[in-house]
Every structure is written in structure tokens, then in C-alpha cells.
């Protein structure tokens, strides 16, 4: 309790504990001398407002860290009261240190939970990667291909667009493996996957179908030109020398493509047709090679 000119008239045992100052040491002294944190313009202006208007004032422990002592967090409520016919100011310090500790603990728990949650999400991504992507090449596996194939086929039906399905086979892959070893063969397979991914569009799905075979889903084909743009990019890389592990390797791809709705109404039909066209392409390439050697 203080007078309007800040003189302390009552200092209860709670304040003694909080401040470490005995009542005898404080009575008659100015409150801003006993509690130097109050020696600030905001406090004087609050006292002035309270004295003249009588409406309560509140200072929070969060905004005023060391109001009474460095060890305690306190809220301060100030009210004007009448005491023996004279007006006095009641300064009510409320210890909220426990509240701060509890919230700090909760924040730590939330932080830990968030950290665990992030780890879990990372693991989920890894699991998803394992479930839907080919371990060797990083492109889609058959599970992901099936998922997208159904989706893209429905979209093509709904929008009246074409769905392209490309069947790609690496020619003489067995020979590459036998000649340069499986390790190099695996790397060649990864390069083929990258080549196909780089040559296709963002929404196209490149899938390792098995062994040395890839499938590529080409959704939303509206004109032959849409397909040609992709085909031209693949054509450039279809037959070329690559250097892998120091070996100069001749890479050649056989490609067949089928389109919904012209070549079939189901994904099974489209794969079968594209496979057929791919074999036709393979025979053509072999015939060309024979001609080249015979010349």
C-alpha cells in the first residue's frame, strides 16, 4: 500500500518473501526506491492516471521482467482505495513464476513433439519412396505406375484427350552386363531412367517396368504435336555412345507407343500394343544394323 506520493504505508509478509526486504526496511520509503524497476515514466504516469481517474492499471510479468526481483515473475495490479477517509494506492503483486515455468516446459514438450513429428514425416517419405519408387533408378515402380495409369486414363475419358503409353527397352542390355559387369549395367540403367525423365514433361510418369524395360505415361495429349515434342527429345538420345566407369558404351533404345483410345480402352491393352510396336522397332533397328555391317 502506498500514498499518492509513493510512500510505502504497508508491506505485507508476501512482499517480504518476494522482494527479500523486511517491512521495517521499506515503510516510509518511496516505492520506486525500494523497487527500482518502477523508477520509470510508465509507472509515474500510471500513478497519475490512477490518482486522478481511479480506474485500475495492469502491468504484466511478461512485459516487466524484474519488477520485484530477478527470481520472480509478477503481474502488478494497481487500484485506488479509500483508507480512513484518504485515498491510497493498492499495488497488488501476483506471483506468476510457476505459470512461466509451466509454459516454458510445455513449449519444450511441444518443441520435442514437433521434432519427433518431423522425423516421422521424413520416415514416411522414405517409406513412400520405398513403396512407390524403384530402388535402383529412382523412377516410379509398378505400384505408382498403376496408381497414375488409372487416374490418367479416367482423365482422358472425361476430357476426351489422348493418353500415350511408351514402352522402352534397352537393346542388348544383357550384353552390356556381361561385357562391363552388373555394377556398370546398373549405372547404365540409371542413366536411361534419367534420360527418359529429362526428355518428358513434368506430369509424365516414367516407370521401371522390370529388368531393362521402362513404361512412360504421357497424359493430356491433345494433338500429335504434343507427342512429337517428347519423341524428338528422346530420339536425340535414343542411339548414342555414353561413357560409364571409363567404358565407351553404345546405348540404343527400342521404343513403341500406343494411344488411348485408338490402340485400346484399358491400360493392359495399351501396354500390349506398345510392347508390340516396340518389338517391331527393335527388329527394324537390328535390320538397320545388319545392313550397316553388310555394307
Amino acid at each position, binding site marked *: 500500500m502506498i500514498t499518492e506520493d509513493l510512500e510505502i504505508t504497508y508491506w505485507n509478509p508476501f512482499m517480504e518473501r518476494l522482494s527479500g526486504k523486511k517491512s521495517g526496511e521499506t515503510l516510509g520509503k518511496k516505492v520506486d526506491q525500494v523497487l527500482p524497476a518502477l523508477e520509470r515514466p*510508465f509507472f509515474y504516469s500510471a500513478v497519475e492516471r490512477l490518482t486522478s*481517474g481511479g*480506474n*485500475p492499471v495492469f*502491468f504484466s510479468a511478461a*512485459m516487466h521482467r524484474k519488477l520485484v526481483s530477478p527470481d520472480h515473475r509478477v503481474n502488478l495490479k494497481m487500484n485506488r482505495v479509500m483508507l480512513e477517509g484518504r485515498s491510497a494506492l493498492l499495488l497488488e503483486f501476483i506471483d506468476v513464476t510457476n505459470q512461466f515455468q509451466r509454459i516454458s516446459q510445455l513449449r519444450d514438450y511441444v518443441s520435442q513433439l514437433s521434432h519427433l513429428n518431423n522425423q516421422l514425416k521424413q520416415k514416411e517419405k522414405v517409406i513412400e519412396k520405398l513403396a512407390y519408387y524403384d530402388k535402383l533408378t529412382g523412377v516410379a515402380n509398378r505400384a505408382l505406375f498403376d496408381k497414375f495409369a488409372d487416374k490418367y486414363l479416367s482423365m482422358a475419358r472425361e476430357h476426351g484427350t489422348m493418353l500415350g503409353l511408351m514402352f522402352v527397352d534397352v537393346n542388348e542390355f544383357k550384353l552390356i552386363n556381361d561385357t562391363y559387369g552388373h555394377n556398370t549395367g546398373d549405372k547404365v540403367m540409371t542413366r536411361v531412367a534419367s534420360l527418359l525423365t529429362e526428355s518428358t514433361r513434368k506430369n509424365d510418369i516414367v516407370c521401371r517396368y522390370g529388368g531393362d524395360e521402362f513404361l512412360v505415361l504421357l497424359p493430356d495429349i491433345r494433338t500429335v504435336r504434343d507427342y512429337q515434342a517428347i519423341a524428338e527429345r528422346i530420339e536425340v538420345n535414343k542411339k548414342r555412345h555414353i561413357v560409364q566407369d571409363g567404358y565407351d558404351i553404345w546405348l540404343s533404345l527400342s521404343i513403341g507407343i500406343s494411344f488411348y483410345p485408338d490402340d485400346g480402352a484399358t491400360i493392359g491393352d495399351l501396354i500390349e500394343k506398345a510392347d508390340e510396336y516396340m518389338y517391331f522397332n527393335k527388329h527394324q533397328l537390328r535390320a538397320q544394323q545388319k545392313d550397316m555391317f553388310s555394307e
Partner: protein
Amino acid sequence: MADNISREDILTELFNVGVGQAASTLSDIIDKRIGLTIPNVRILDAAKGKIELNKYLLNVAEGAVMVSSISFDSQLEGKVSLLFPADKMHHFIDLCLHETRDEFENSLEFTDIDFDTIKEIGNIVINSIIGELSNTVNIPVEYTLPDIDVLNDANAEHFVDCEDYRLVLMMFLAFDIEGTEIAGAIVINMTLNSLDDILNKIDKLYNGR
């Protein structure tokens, strides 16, 4: 007798003096440069007040607000609500407390510490507005500390009471903490008699009637 526009201008000036003092007090407390301005005050009937307030709630606060409100009585009677967009409040509180919190904490959940911080700010701002008004027109006003609440789906009905011929003083509050701006709103919902008393006093003060 002054017309409505000049009365609104006088109230705008009066409240800006008040929030200027509030800004200076807050700057002293948090040790940062703070700007507080009220671009204009509008006196509206309850129906129009609700329309204007709903615009703010929808466009600025997206329906979720942190509200600091007090009811006042004595010679003047009514309720003042200081509204802030809830989604900006974590950042706002952090600026006041010189803290930064992790991204995952930026929800619409608030702790008792957050509430106490806004209670202090609300107390200072509302005190400055009502205090300045009360001093100028020399009409005593009595009120308690503000109640703090977070309303996730707020609409004007929460703040504007149509009964007892109540009117609305509606103003926006531009809060600027070292370049970070937060658009608050202040709604004073008071009885017609109370507002008449204020406006009559203002007329007397400024027009000598």
C-alpha cells in the same frame, strides 16, 4: 451546433491525443519505437456499425480476433472493445516481449502470458482513449481491467448491442512496432444518452454553447 462531420473530426483529434500518449507509454515499456494512430472516428447507428465492423472482421481479421474489452459506467455507460486480427497476435506479442517463437507455435492458441500481455496493452490503449474523452468532456467514467478473449468466428453481434438505443463509435487503430503494422479496430458501443452528453459537452467546448 456542430454537424456530425466536425464532431467526428473533434473525436478523431481527441482520441489521437490519447493514443499518442499510449504509444509513448508502450514505447517506454517495451523499449521500441511505437506508432499508434486513429485515421478517423465514425459515429454510426447500431445497424450501420455492424455492417462496418463485419467488413473489418471479414477482410482484415478473417473472422478470428483477439479482443480486449471493458464495460464502463457511472455517468457514461457502454462497452469498449479493442480488436486485433488473431493470426497476427503471436508476432505482435513477440515483438512486444523481444522474443521469437518457433513456427510450429503459430496457431491460434494463446497462453496466459499472451493474454496478460494483451491485457496490459488493452489497458493502456483503452485507458488512453476513454481517459482522454472523460477528461476533455469532464464526465467521470468508471471501469475495470479489460477482459481478453479470442473469438474464432467473430461477427459484429459480439460487440454491438442494438438495445437501449445504442450507438457505435467505430475507429481503426494503426499499430506500428518498428515497421511491423497491425490493423486493429476499436468499437465503442454506448447509449444514445451517453453519446449525447459527450457531443453536447464537445459542442460547448468548441463552439461555446
